[in-house]
């Protein structure tokens, strides 16, 4: 095992100067030459949409793909609460350095300092850019921008557009993208799924895609490939992700040589609507912003089945306020989720299933009035009522943790390039900025920072060293990738077994949730590593996918994605098993303090785990990128 392949290419100099210096040192592509370069961008969320638009504006020839029927539907659209930026408009002590510090600490010291500092720097420009695009952020009566607080921070730095911040930011990026499509610099292909990466002479030069309407499989070529294909939370079947969110693009890239970084780092979001039945197809998030005004509690006594309004104050346990007095209800997500699980494990959970805790607005309504609460969270309260049939203005919400975001992803260097030259990875699809736990309102920030303000510079540096159009469309690798994709489709359609795709996905999800969820143990992980390949074999023996390949066939789409999840889940468990420590969202039962907090092991695990594919029969190879904390002292994370 060597670290030779993992050169993070972090520029020298003090942290505050690295990005400026790097921007100057990078090579540029002459404006007149830019149109000679073709860039493939997969995905149209905050990262992909902003990248495709910005690269189009620069003059590159961009081919952009998405699986939905329109680029506006990427799952970034569902982000509710807000986007962080170190504007310090509130005069409350914020700065680029503080956002950098909070993000490193929030990530439990498992992110790369230089990337995170650059993210905090870019945050400021993102807000400017979005306002100029017409994003209607919340404002004060004086006409200036409003802010609110989010978990893991003691300053108010989150910008928001009601409970639909992701939607508004995405529509901003989408409108910029549509403008470039109209201008002819971006060619958009919706309802198209990437099935493989084409690598020639060690460089990424194209992708194999399936047109989801006609079912046709074809290849596209470019001078660089940018993946912005989101996270893999749906490996758990139930998550807050959209139904279509999947690991296929990044997994295929992994199998073509891109190292996968920290796959076990998963974020379980504390405030989701609890599961109601086994038909459940997804889980719905209630924005973390609700924790600004909502108080989390369970009954003090186990088995207390009284209605919440009948439980007197003295018999309630506001456990976050009790255990973490300085952050209280705004403790970071991993901590709040684990605390909820603990309360439920003690038999103090609420609701029919006992898998829930209360999020109570009674005090806030008394203090601020119902109208103010309605203004702040009206759409979230409405959504809660539609789903549960209960009115949260009268009764406390019931919430429970659910899989929400994946910090792991393809390993990238400082330039956001993977271990395959020419393959860049942005947004949730890469591993880079959130360490072992992402803070609220930081995903939108990262997606847009990568797309608007990082890739337009770093991709130029790569392209300047590549002759445009240097790929061979008819070469063996390209033909093999395409025929491999077709062969796989034929195989899926040819099994004609007895079980549906969803039944396999559910079963995989149960294994992952039980053995690689909020609390992980070596024994459970070993069990999952044994069980997943069996399930995979069964899938390839007895799945039933009806219809034809050359048609609009949603079962076939799902089958391909679940097949990849069935491989990926195993890697996730391997990573979780190897990481003998607890950090952020990765909680190993064996590694905790006497009062149940995560115990990190900086001596042995202060590194990024990057896994390299070595063939079907071989185990993946582990490479380590050591993390150096030169600015922020490694410390035990405390929110007490």
């Amino acid at each position, binding site marked *: 095992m060597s670290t030779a392949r993992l050169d993070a290419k972090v520029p020298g100099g003090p942290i505050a100067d690295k990005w400026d210096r790097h921007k100057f040192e990078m090579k540029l592509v002459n404006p007149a030459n830019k149109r000679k370069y073709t860039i493939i961008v997969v995905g149209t969320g905050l990262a992909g949409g902003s990248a495709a638009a910005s690269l189009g504006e620069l003059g590159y020839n961009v081919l952009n793909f998405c699986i939905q029927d329109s680029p506006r539907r990427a799952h970034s659209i569902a982000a509710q609460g807000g986007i962080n930026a170190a504007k310090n408009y509130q005069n409350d002590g914020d700065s680029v350095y503080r956002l950098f510090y909070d993000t490193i600490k929030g990530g439990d010291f498992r992110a790369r300092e230089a990337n995170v500092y650059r993210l905090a720097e870019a945050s400021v420009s993102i807000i400017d850019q979005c306002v100029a695009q017409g994003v209607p952020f919340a404002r004060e009566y004086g006409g200036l921008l409003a802010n609110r607080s989010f978990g893991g921070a003691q300053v108010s730095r989150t910008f928001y557009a009601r409970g639909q911040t992701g939607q508004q930011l995405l529509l901003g990026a989408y409108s910029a993208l*549509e403008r470039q499509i109209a201008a002819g610099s971006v060619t958009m292909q919706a309802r198209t799924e990437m099935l493989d990466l084409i690598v020639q002479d060690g460089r990424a030069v194209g992708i194999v895609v399936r047109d989801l309407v006609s079912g046709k499989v074809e290849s596209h070529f470019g001078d660089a490939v940018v993946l912005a294909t989101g996270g893999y939370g749906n490996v758990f079947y139930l998550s807050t992700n959209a139904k279509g969110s999947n690991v296929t693009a990044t997994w295929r890239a992994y199998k073509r040589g891109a190292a996968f970084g920290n796959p076990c780092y998963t974020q379980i979001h504390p405030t989701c609507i609890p599961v109601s039945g086994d038909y459940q*197809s997804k889980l719905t998030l209630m924005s973390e912003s609700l924790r600004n005004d909502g108080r989390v509690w369970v009954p003090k006594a186990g088995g207390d089945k009284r209605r919440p309004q009948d439980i007197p104050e003295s018999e309630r346990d506001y456990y976050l306020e009790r255990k973490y007095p300085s952050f209280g209800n705004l403790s970071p997500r991993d901590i709040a989720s684990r605390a909820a699980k603990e309360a439920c494990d003690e038999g103090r959970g609420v609701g029919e299933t006992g898998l829930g805790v209360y999020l109570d607005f009674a005090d806030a309504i008394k203090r601020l009035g119902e109208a103010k609460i309605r203004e702040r969270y009206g759409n979230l309260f409405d959504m809660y009522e539609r*789903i549960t049939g209960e009115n949260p203005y009268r009764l406390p919400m019931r919430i429970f943790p659910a899989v929400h975001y994946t910090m792991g992803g393809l390993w990238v260097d400082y330039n956001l390039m993977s271990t395959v030259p020419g393959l860049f990875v942005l947004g949730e699809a890469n591993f880079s900025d959130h360490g072992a736990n992402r803070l609220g309102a930081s995903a939108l920030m990262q997606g847009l920072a990568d797309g608007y303000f990082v890739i337009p510079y770093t991709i130029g540096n790569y392209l300047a060293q590549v002759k445009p159009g240097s790929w061979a469309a008819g070469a063996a690798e390209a033909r093999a990738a395409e025929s491999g994709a077709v062969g796989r489709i034929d195989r899926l359609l040819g099994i004609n077994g007895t079980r*549906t795709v969803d039944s396999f996905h559910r079963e995989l999800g149960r294994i992952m949730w039980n053995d690689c969820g909020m609390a992980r143990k070596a024994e459970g992980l070993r069990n999952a590593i044994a069980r997943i390949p069996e399930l995979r074999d069964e899938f390839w023996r007895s799945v039933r996918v*009806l219809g034809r390949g050359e048609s609009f066939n949603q079962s076939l789409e799902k089958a391909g994605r679940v097949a990849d999840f069935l491989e990926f889940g195993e890697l996730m468990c391997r990573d979780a098993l190897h990481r003998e420590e607890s950090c952020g969202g990765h909680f190993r039962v064996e590694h905790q303090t006497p009062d149940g907090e995560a115990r990190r092991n900086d001596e042995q695990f202060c590194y990024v785990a990057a896994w390299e594919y070595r063939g079907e029969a071989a185990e993946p190879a582990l490479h380590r990128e050591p993390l150096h904390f030169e600015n922020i002292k490694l410390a035990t994370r405390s929110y007490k």
Partner: protein
Amino acid sequence: MSDKARDMRITLRVWRQAGPGAPGRFETYQAERVSPDMSFLEMIDVVNEDLIGRGQEPIAFDHDCREGICGMCSMVIDGVPHGPHRGTTTCQLHMRSFADGDTVTVEPFRARGFPVVRDLAVDRSALDRIIQAGGFIGVATGNAPDANAMPVPKEASDRAMDAAQCIGCGACVAACPNASAMLFTAAKVTHLGLLPQGQPERYRRVLGMVTQMDLEGFGGCTNFGECQEACPKEIGVWTIARLNADYLKGTVTARDDARAGGEAG
């Protein structure tokens, strides 16, 4: 977990159509053991699992986020786009809104501008092309001044947000007797037209977008108001009044080069 005593039995009449040119027809299916806590799409999931088990191809339908924001789900339920509740997408409609023994008819959004892809899935790319014709503020990355350099009155910002909430689902088109995309177009024109940042392109935007809407085969607006009833984000026809005012002013004042529509500046 689901309580068997509350389970319902629903009869579904579902539009099945193999492709854009193929003839379509209603098929009848029984949905057994429907829990009132299921979403409408989860009920269809259960029907589909059952169909696959019997060797029949499942019902194709568009959906993604299943939390009412992506705008992908698109069914007409008992004659109403997104079903019986105001301000609710199909994915957020729950079966407790129906009664045991009900017969429910499910069709795709029907409009000339939305050809059927298969069964309940339609092609709404025309809406993207309307946005391409001007539904943006032309600001390239990196050009922006400080976000607080230009104050925006809270009322204007809130009204812009009311319009900006459009999820682009096309229910307004499906509900309109003329299959007009007026509410969709007006929502974007209003969102950007209310903000100071949207002023420089305000009139060329409305001319471009309306021209494109016509080219896509959507009908004209004759003030039925069905669109605002069907809109899952409850965007009102007040936005159409604003569009009409801007359009009128635009046609009077615009230079010829701004009339073309579809050009992107």
